[in-house]
């Protein structure tokens, strides 16, 4: 009985940790190099995404949530050319009907999207959205301007973006939600460290 109480207490009070062993963590080295070709090195900044962050995401983006794998310690990478900051790289996952889609986002120092690359996407329509034409709808946008691409239900893209997505509207919705959460969480959690870099 005592053991059972301890287990229940642990279940209730346990912090958010990674479900996977830490030896399986891998840095997106190739993708950072692809998104920042001038990069000579990178700086990792690890922060804890907890239930309070999750609540703030739900509040800022109604009808949205974070997948449980998105809680716990996560890394923002600062792409550097020697000691000069080139920008930031943030990998986030978004649930889709093809499983989790992982996207590597490249941001400039003002948290404006520079580019993105799919790290893991098992949708057969990935190639349609990996095009420069579709990416242009995201490049140069910050959180507020990107939010205008969201339709009133808060989870799907508006007609302007869906028009660029051609036959891949569902994946376009996933990319948009992922972009918004990335920009929001980066600002909420990493602003202090990023300000110190400047």
């Amino acid at each position, binding site marked *: 009985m005592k053991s059972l109480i301890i*287990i229940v207490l*642990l*279940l209730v009070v*346990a*912090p*958010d*940790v*990674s*479900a*996977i*062993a*830490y*030896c*399986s*963590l*891998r840095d*997106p*080295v*190739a*993708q950072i*190099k*692809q998104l920042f070709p001038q990069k*000579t*090195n*990178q*700086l*990792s*900044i*690890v922060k804890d995404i907890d239930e309070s962050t999750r609540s703030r995401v739900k509040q800022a983006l109604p009808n949205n949530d974070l*997948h*449980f*794998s998105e*809680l*716990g*310690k996560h*890394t923002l990478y*600062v792409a*550097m050319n*020697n*000691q000069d900051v080139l920008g930031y790289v943030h990998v986030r996952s978004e*649930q*889709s*009907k*093809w*499983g*989790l889609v*992982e996207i590597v986002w490249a941001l400039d120092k003002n948290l404006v999207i520079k580019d993105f690359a799919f*790290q*893991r996407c*098992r*949708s*057969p329509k990935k190639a349609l959205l990996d095009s420069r034409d579709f990416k242009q709808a995201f490049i140069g946008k910050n959180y507020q301007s990107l939010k205008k691409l969201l339709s009133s239900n808060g989870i799907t893209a508006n007609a302007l973006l869906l028009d660029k997505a051609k036959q891949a509207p569902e994946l376009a919705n996933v990319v948009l939600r992922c972009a918004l959460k990335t920009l929001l969480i980066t600002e909420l959690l990493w602003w*202090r*460290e990023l300000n*110190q*870099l400047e």
Partner: protein
Amino acid sequence: MGIFKCLQPYVQRCFNEYSLVLLSLSLGLVCSLASYAEPIENFRWSIDGSARINNNIASDNTSRIFALGLDTHKVFTSKSGDIGYMVGQLYFTKLSNQTPFPWMFDDKDDSTLVVREAHVNYTAGPAGMPNIRLGHFTLPFGLENNLDTNGRLLDYNHGKNLGAKVDWGIGLNDVLDTFQYSVSYTLGGKDEPKSINGSYAVTGRVGSLSYHDFVFGVSLYHAEMDGVKRKRVAIDWQYYWHTWGLLGEAALGKDTKQQQWRNEQYYLLEVNKRSVDEQLKLYTQYIVTNRSGDKKNNQLVNIGLSYQFNGQLELSMSSRKQLITPESGKKQHLVRAQLRYRF
């Protein structure tokens, strides 16, 4: 063989107690030199507990394995970027009626502290130079190199195929634009950072980038461990489509497990399926081992599932059954279940 054995004293020197203390102090010092007003902590840790029950139907035996450990990960940084990272995993492990028991235990009810992974990977070398890994790490071979199975029921026969899953040593690794590689020289002492009776292992894998939907790799292994010499060459692949995965590994080689050299072929084929929220994972494996001199090959089917309730709690189950009756007369049939909790 001669060239591999002559490396032993140099690698061994990396693991005397003074070197490890100096290494820890150096990394600690470098870490504290971070140039920001608030030092970047970059530290992950969690307590990892699991209880596993094994029902060996063929031998009518039920056993249990309990593990409670600390899993840690730390990225070391300086003002010009990351220097490297450290992984440390120490587990108190208790057996209950476990037969046969793993080599690091003295009897079927023994308990001991097990170091799973404990290594640093130095990543701040000049452009074009590989990262340098030092410590106790998983041998870079086959599917296991990309798909970590530490503490899980899912297994890619790494330890059985190579004679050890993890070993103390030094390695070089890097991820380039189109491929990645990892090679290592380890001492063959398995849980001990030393060479035992001339033991060593040279392991390496080169493969396409691990995050793609199709991944292909080639591995090599050359070792002498526990008095057994082993040579292996293997190919492995992973292909993912929607929520399905098709994985395989084929290894050819020879060893001296029965005093003289005998050829061995090993094939593994896995089909897996995940739910869209990735909480449920199902897999089935078909494994064939063929040894020269044996009248029959060994064929196994392994069916398993895992369910991740949240970021902490996971339930997994598997049933492993031998398809062909071995010369000893009884087909192996092992049913296992595990509850794992990370907090």
